[in-house]
């Protein structure tokens, strides 16, 4: 059975329905794209899964365990961690501290160790691990800089580094490449692949940039008005008339995706 499942999920805000009767199955090691027009409920989905909102109805099952209704921190502890659309960082922390805080779940060493300074060894390990992650995200040259002072691209990268640092098994990325130039985007895309391959993580990805989605996703789910419109391999999605109708408003897909490379 799937590593992660969403069954009959509904989320209403007062009157309006953000998500209705949504089912989703994600296999271990998969990169799953979640796409859809603005207001389709993608980010709401992330917020519900990560426990920011409680689902109105439905189940969220992870590794066979019901997870709906838990606090974000508990969900993170189970190994499901999300990033945010906004560049969510600890802006007045250094890059290093941002990652170290995120090591929190994995680091031991309670109050007394802290007070009597016997947590040195642990701290060392943590710093080693943190540096590894920072290096992986290509930020090592900035490790003592204030997150606030970083250029946008690096801030996005740091956002992911923070999520990685808590060592999730399922990583949920909310529009990781927004506002990046083509080079940065390419770099980020490769990183996401590497995360899956080298860190053995399953990835749930919300993204507007079709190139990225088509490029790295094994499977794509299309949302529209909170419902699942279609699901399948990138190519299938591209060929799906409903998707083209609803999502791309019937325009010439190929053109929109910038020619053959996308189709390929």
């Amino acid at each position, binding site marked *: 059975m799937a590593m992660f499942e969403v069954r009959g999920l509904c989320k209403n805000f007062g009157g309006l329905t953000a998500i209705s009767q949504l089912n989703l199955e994600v296999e271990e090691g998969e990169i799953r794209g979640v796409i859809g027009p603005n207001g389709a409920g993608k980010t709401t989905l992330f917020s519900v899964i990560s426990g920011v909102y409680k689902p109105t109805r439905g189940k969220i099952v992870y590794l066979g365990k019901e997870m709906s209704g838990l606090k*974000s921190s508990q969900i993170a502890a189970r190994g499901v961690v999300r990033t945010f659309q906004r560049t969510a*960082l600890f*802006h*007045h922390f250094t890059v290093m501290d941002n990652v170290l*805080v995120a090591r*929190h779940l994995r680091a031991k*060493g309670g*109050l007394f160790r802290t007070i009597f300074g016997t947590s040195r060894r642990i701290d060392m390990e943590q710093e080693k691990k943190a540096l590894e992650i920072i290096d992986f995200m290509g930020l090592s040259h900035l490790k003592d800089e204030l997150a606030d002072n970083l250029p946008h691209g690096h801030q996005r990268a740091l956002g992911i580094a923070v999520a990685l*640092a808590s060592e999730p098994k399922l990583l949920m990325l909310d529009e990781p490449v927004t506002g990046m130039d083509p080079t940065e985007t390419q770099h980020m895309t490769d990183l996401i692949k590497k995360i899956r391959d080298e860190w053995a993580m399953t990835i749930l990805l919300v993204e507007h940039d079709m190139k990225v989605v088509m490029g790295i996703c094994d499977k794509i789910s299309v949302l529209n008005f909170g419902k699942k419109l279609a699901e399948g391999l990138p190519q299938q999605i591209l060929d799906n008339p409903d998707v083209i109708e609803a999502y791309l408003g019937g325009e010439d897909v190929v053109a929109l995706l910038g020619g053959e490379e996308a189709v390929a």
Partner: protein
Amino acid sequence: MLKHKVLSIIGVVALIAVMSVLPFFAREYYVEILIIFLINVILAASYRLIATTGDWTLCHVILMGAGAYASALMAKYFGWPFWMTAPLAGATVGLVGLGIVYPMLRTVGFGFFITSLAVGEFIRLSWIKFHNPFGGPRGMINIPEVGIIGSIDFYEAIPYYFMTLVITLVCLLILYRIDRSRIGKAFKSIYEDSVLAESIGINVGRYRSFAFVIGSFFAGIAGALLAHRLGAIDPHIFGLDEMVYLLVWVIVGGSTTFAGPIIGVAVMTILFEWTRPLMEWRPLFFGVILIGFLIFMPGGLESLVPKFTRLFGNRKASQARAEEPAGAKKSVV
């Protein structure tokens, strides 16, 4: 970075040296002032620890009072010695903190602030209400002195001063370690972005109450020191005015760096003594200072340090600030 460290260590050592010779040159009255000063340092530093999570409270002075009462009761009715009652007072207040923080956690920011005022008042009124054991409005009298240990009479000012100095240093060391530890970082991360903190596995609710409980513990220690020095305590010396004075210290000093509140206490204590002649005008004077700082120097005195270091072309300035989460402008809320 290393140079920076060495310098600060030298600074601290020098400060301790000064503090240890000072009483020998001061009149008895000023030694008493120094004792109260040290107690207030513990109070302010522990207050800052709670504030690093973004939770500013209005009941910290009352928690100190709880410590004073707890220690006084234990010393008076069980005849326990100070070295026992002080930590136990801390523990008691820690528990009190744990108890009251629960409803308070339902609120954030200003709601938390104002709720803490009401909850604190509840505690203070309970001392007035329950004559037994708290002694009602009169409070508690004849609180046992620390007494003679070995050949030293701790009723005398100078020995008590040194005892207080040692306890204060220990408290500060612990608070500093917590501040710098992963726990301290978790506190600050909540202040920075509680949603993000929660999403990476930091249980915001638990850590907020954790900070509150630790802060309460040290407030309790401060209270014990106060009670056994004054020999008599009553509910009125832990009122809202005293709480606002604590805010003045923290705001004048700044809450971003560990040293900030301590600087605040030092400067304000000097001003307080200096303005003694104009007793009845003093609150007005401090009111003006409070408003002035909040409007014109919200970062407090500490916010001058980076400015100066930048003046002297020190590139490390940004790092110096980087060690701390909250930029000066954010030091409140």
